[in-house]
């Protein structure tokens, strides 16, 4: 069975929680005791309806303030697919959370309130979805009940969005437009009779049929960051030496000629193990152990690729960076980067154009990169790194930035 990961984002008022609640409800994913608990909690807050946002707002501070602070994960399934929704808040540290939530998603759902149309927030959602190269974007025009289910209103919003789409959309990105009412369940699971002018599929059908990105990562070059070397040294497996890792992209078969980066030593795949089972092929996302014909020196942080298909081995690169810490990134400062399993000391050698996503404005003379800003940053490294361009192979094109003093993850980068 497949897993479809979805990112949803939006403010408190655009009906996002109601939409998620609706999906859970219609797929029988909320149990009776949880609905009862919601009713009690809503009554305690003095509400005369069941507040579905209480289902996702899990922390004390969130419930007290009626806001969502952090990315919440919500699960439901149909007979075809398991769904994981990363639900991110609309107000608080929006960009940081949206990037985090969207980083694993193959579908991004952007909600627009039919009464208000395309907003600044809509632009941010779409910008980040495109930055992360999420191939499937579903723009759901919600609260159609408050717009009398009128086609003209939907078309008007679609036209406004199209102007934005032209600027930000990348080739191969698919944008679907759908009119819905989460409150009344219109176009969620079944086609809406009230909007018979809409010829497309209801939301759940769109989700059920979306092609899942990770599965076609097979078409990219083989990338295998080594996590851990397995050397049991038992009587039975005395000379066994295996390289444990997860296939980032591409595929590998026994007998394939490989190269270890950065040493460039060459060998051949002897076997592929998944616990006790030997495999004939390892595909993207699979956690396996590779054994080689020759005894070459490979350790954590190295990368196994097919001979002649490897990325360039470099000691510097430029990347689009999304900054996630309250202390800004400054030129000249040292950080650590983690690219897959490869951790290297780095120095920021320059900062280029900076996009302030909160107000969607670009500036070219920034000295630093502040929380929730996205900018071009040049890095130099103490050791070797071997990324692909994010645009070409996302699975090997992103990295995280770690502050050496606080140990926190302070940013994410996309190699350009």
């Amino acid at each position, binding site marked *: 069975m*497949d897993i479809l990961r979805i990112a949803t984002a939006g403010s408190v008022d655009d009906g996002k929680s109601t939409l998620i609640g609706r999906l859970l409800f*219609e797929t029988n994913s909320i149990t009776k005791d949880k609905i009862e608990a919601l009713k009690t909690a809503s009554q305690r807050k003095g509400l005369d309806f*069941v507040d579905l946002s209480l289902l996702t707002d899990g922390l004390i501070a969130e419930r007290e303030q009626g806001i969502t602070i952090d990315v919440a994960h919500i699960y439901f399934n149909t007979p075809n697919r398991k769904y994981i929704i990363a639900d991110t808040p609309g107000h608080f540290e929006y960009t940081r959370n949206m990037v985090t939530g969207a980083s694993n998603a193959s579908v991004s759902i952007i909600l627009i309130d039919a009464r208000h149309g395309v907003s600044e927030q809509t632009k941010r959602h779409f910008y980040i979805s495109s930055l992360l190269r999420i191939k499937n974007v579903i723009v759901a025009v919600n609260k159609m009940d408050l717009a009398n289910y009128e086609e003209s209103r939907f078309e008007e919003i679609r036209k406004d969005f199209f102007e934005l789409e032209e600027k930000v959309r990348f080739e191969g990105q698919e944008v679907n437009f759908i009119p819905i009412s989460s409150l009344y369940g219109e176009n969620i699971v079944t086609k809406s009779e009230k909007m018979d002018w809409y010829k497309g599929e209801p939301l759940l059908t769109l989700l059920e049929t979306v092609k899942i990105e990770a599965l076609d990562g097979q078409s990219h070059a083989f990338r295998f960051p080594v996590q851990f070397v397995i050397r049991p040294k*038992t009587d039975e497996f005395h000379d066994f030496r295996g390289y444990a890792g997860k296939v980032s992209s591409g595929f590998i078969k026994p007998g394939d000629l490989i190269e270890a980066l950065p040493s460039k030593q060459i060998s051949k795949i002897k076997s592929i193990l998944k616990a006790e089972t030997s495999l004939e092929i390892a595909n993207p996302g699979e956690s396996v152990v590779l054994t080689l014909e020759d005894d070459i020196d490979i350790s954590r942080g190295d990368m196994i690729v097919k001979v002649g298909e490897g990325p360039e081995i470099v000691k510097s690169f430029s990347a689009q960076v999304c900054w996630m810490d309250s202390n800004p990134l400054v030129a000249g400062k040292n950080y650590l980067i983690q690219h897959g399993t490869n951790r290297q000391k780095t120095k920021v050698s320059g900062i280029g154009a900076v996009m302030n996503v909160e107000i969607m404005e670009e500036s070219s003379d920034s000295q630093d990169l502040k929380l929730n800003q996205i900018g071009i940053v040049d890095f130099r490294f103490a050791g070797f790194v071997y990324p692909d361009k994010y645009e070409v192979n996302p699975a090997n094109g992103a990295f995280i930035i770690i502050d050496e003093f606080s140990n926190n993850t302070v940013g994410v980068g996309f190699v350009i």
Partner: protein
Amino acid sequence: MVAEAKEKVNFKTNKSFPRQLEDEAIYILREVAAQFEKPAILFSGGKDSITIVRLAQKAFYPGKIPFPLLHVDTGHNFPETIEFRDALVKELGVELIVRNVEDSIKQGKVKEETGKYASRNALQTVTLLDAIEEHKFDACIGGARRDEEKARAKERIFSVRNDFGQWDSKKQRPEIFDMLNGKIEIGENVRVFPISNWTELDVWNYIKEEELEIPSIYYSHERDVFDRDGMIWSDSEFINKSADEIPYKSIVRFRTVGDMTCTAAVSSDANTIDQIIEEILGAEISERGARIDDKRSEAAMEKRKQQGYF
């Protein structure tokens, strides 16, 4: 809101395990082995920690599991769970470390609760933190899942805890793509949740596909029980019953396995994993609906996590 659904289709018919979840969990366990010096698996004897042990076995095959198992024994466990634990440890040849809440009580570090709802569930946090300090564990792997409870829905895969084992929900590290940052200061530790993205159903489907053994109390059996607050409690010497709480025999099973003082039973005839899965698919009550410890308040879990609980 929740207006009536127009046509209720039965969506919860899924009976197969999404294999990507296993790949993801194995990846996480290998990151733990690579990024930390002294990790341990927190083992309760429940289905989730049994799943973790199986995943660890697969992650490092043909090597052995490179972590000891740590069990914080409240002294109120079901005897069936302890029997199961000992048999599993023997079969795998892994090290088992047991630390007892009883000892923490004797040392005066915690006080036994009194009254009708007395439980050692909250007390085990102190014993756990002492064990972490004693063994200098820098990572503790647990079987908590985000779908269990709403505070857990916000939990990271690598959850950094301070010197006092406390969880600060506002200072969580962003986890982007699959990259996990386990860098910490000496004295801090990380709680690791490899099956964060699994649901209860995923765990059962996995147990079925992997043909894993589980403690007998998960299956239907006859037991002395009594009723309290609309739940079925297992009768035991550890629970303070009032005079009108009369035990009787009933056919039940346990959906989750915690202490005898905080885990309610459900009426059930399910004798096989298939029957258990059928039962869960039709269940109207969530898994933790049978956890007495969660019922203490709306934010019971978050408050315990701030104290260093899982």
